């Protein structure tokens, strides 16, 4: 399966912040900085979705932002994984009854891993990225078995 080969290297992550309250966003940065140090595995934030393997999305998505999120998702090369960080992206959270929320993220783009928490701890975010990795590996094994 040459198609999934890119996941055998370190994952590069693109972070898109929707209507998030910043709490998840600063925990994502904290996950990369020396205490938790995800960068030692080569996991790092990249500036463009075209370079990324994993898309981290935070926050409930306002109506104004939904089409931008869809565009970011489409710009990412395949194979890709989407990780939702935080309660509001998972289910709407405290913003469930807002007039300006386009819905939880899985109603806008396909999601692979949910990391609940308000905000989740950096360990949980790293665990979420690892889960996305495992999921892809499992998929790869299934595909190899079929061949």
């Amino acid at each position: 399966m040459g198609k999934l080969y890119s996941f055998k290297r370190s994952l590069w992550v693109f972070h898109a912040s929707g209507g998030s309250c910043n709490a998840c966003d600063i925990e994502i940065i904290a996950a990369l900085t020396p205490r938790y140090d995800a960068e030692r595995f080569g996991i790092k934030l990249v500036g463009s979705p075209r370079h990324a393997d994993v898309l981290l999305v935070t926050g409930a998505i306002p109506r104004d932002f939904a089409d931008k999120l869809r565009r970011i998702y489409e710009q990412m090369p395949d194979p890709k994984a989407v990780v939702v960080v935080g309660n509001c992206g998972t289910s709407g959270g405290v913003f469930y009854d807002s007039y300006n929320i386009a819905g939880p993220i899985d109603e806008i783009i396909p999601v692979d891993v949910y990391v609940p928490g308000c905000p989740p701890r950096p360990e949980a975010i790293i665990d979420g990225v690892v889960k996305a990795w495992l999921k892809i590996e499992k998929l790869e094994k299934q595909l190899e078995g079929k061949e």
Partner: protein
Amino acid sequence: MAKTQYYIPVGPIHPALKEPIRVEAEVEGEKIVKVDVKRGFAHRGIEYMGMKRNAIQTLYLSERICGICSISHPYAFVIGSEKALGIEAPPRAQYIRPIIAELERIHSHILWLGVVAHEMGFDSLLFWTWKGREKVLDLLELLTGNRINYSVFMIGGVRRDIKESHIKAIKETIDFYRIFTEEMKDVFLSDPVYKARTRGVAQLSKEMALKLNVCGPVARAAGLRMDVRQDNPYDAYADIGVRAVVPQDIVGEARGDAYDITLVRLYEIEQSLDIIEFCIDNMPEGKIMAIPNYVVLLSKIKKTVGEGIGMHEAPRGEVVHYFKYDGTRDGPAVWKVVAPSYNNINSWAPLLLGAEVADIPIVVAYIDPCMCCNDRVAVVRDSDGRTLDYSLIRRKAVEKTMKIKKELGVIE
């Protein structure tokens, strides 16, 4: 003639921005000649939701306005609510609140120092400052149970007490930050590259600062002595006598550029350490909640008719919450929030004009913008003051297209 003006869109998703906002710049060579800021991508309608929920639910909703100021909004909320209800927090709670608020200021200011270093290209400095920031998050976790979004305030008090074992940890953290702030001062203020990159960049004069109505560290860096804790003290701040940190007191003159803002923020960390020390040394004994029973509190709110304004000096500037309880429901009938970034973003357009393209990230970052605090909904009104909704505006657009089509003879 060759094209000399180019259009550079920045955002809403951009590596230099943590949150969605759009800056559109026209450049001539390296010089920016026209600039426009578009906001509203992170609008979630929090005030509307708050006016449908009860006051305690709304208090924790206000915490989610901004995750970095997750004490500042509840602080203004509880003060405003207490004024409307006519109750007062017990003295011990009034001393616990500033401790948590100042710890948040320390973490927010260190966060900003890291972000601005990152925007400039000093990534190792980002990592070093954020390594130091983890210590205050550990303390906040010990005191409140969470690293961010502490849920520790309550209308008429605080939910968690500070115990004897906590005080030891607080003192240790203060000692750590006394040394760490000195190190940060050494790195940020005496580094020649940092100085060259920030001196004269994003320079705001005193007159400009007044005219643009900026607040918080941005205004103080321009030399304006304004600080809610000084001008309109509340809780234990009234006993402490906080003075605004302005550059003219530290280095003799205020230039109002990005370097002066760094100076103000670094010295404010020291000021916060002093405030925390004062609070733990002078903390009175007693209870921590005026009305410990939430059901009693909610029924009191339901019977209350009144209004109140709460103000707090957030790390970024002043936060103002306005409340009106109308005696019919257990939540606010009117709730209005004004966040500091709303004023501070006004300074972007004048500062970017004439600046270089490479200075956009510094100008954008120097006010520590917080889009989730300030994004509003845009309401278009016609000349009679009636609100025009989107479907009406769209119908007008369709009508105009049809009219032009008719004029051009495309359709009959």
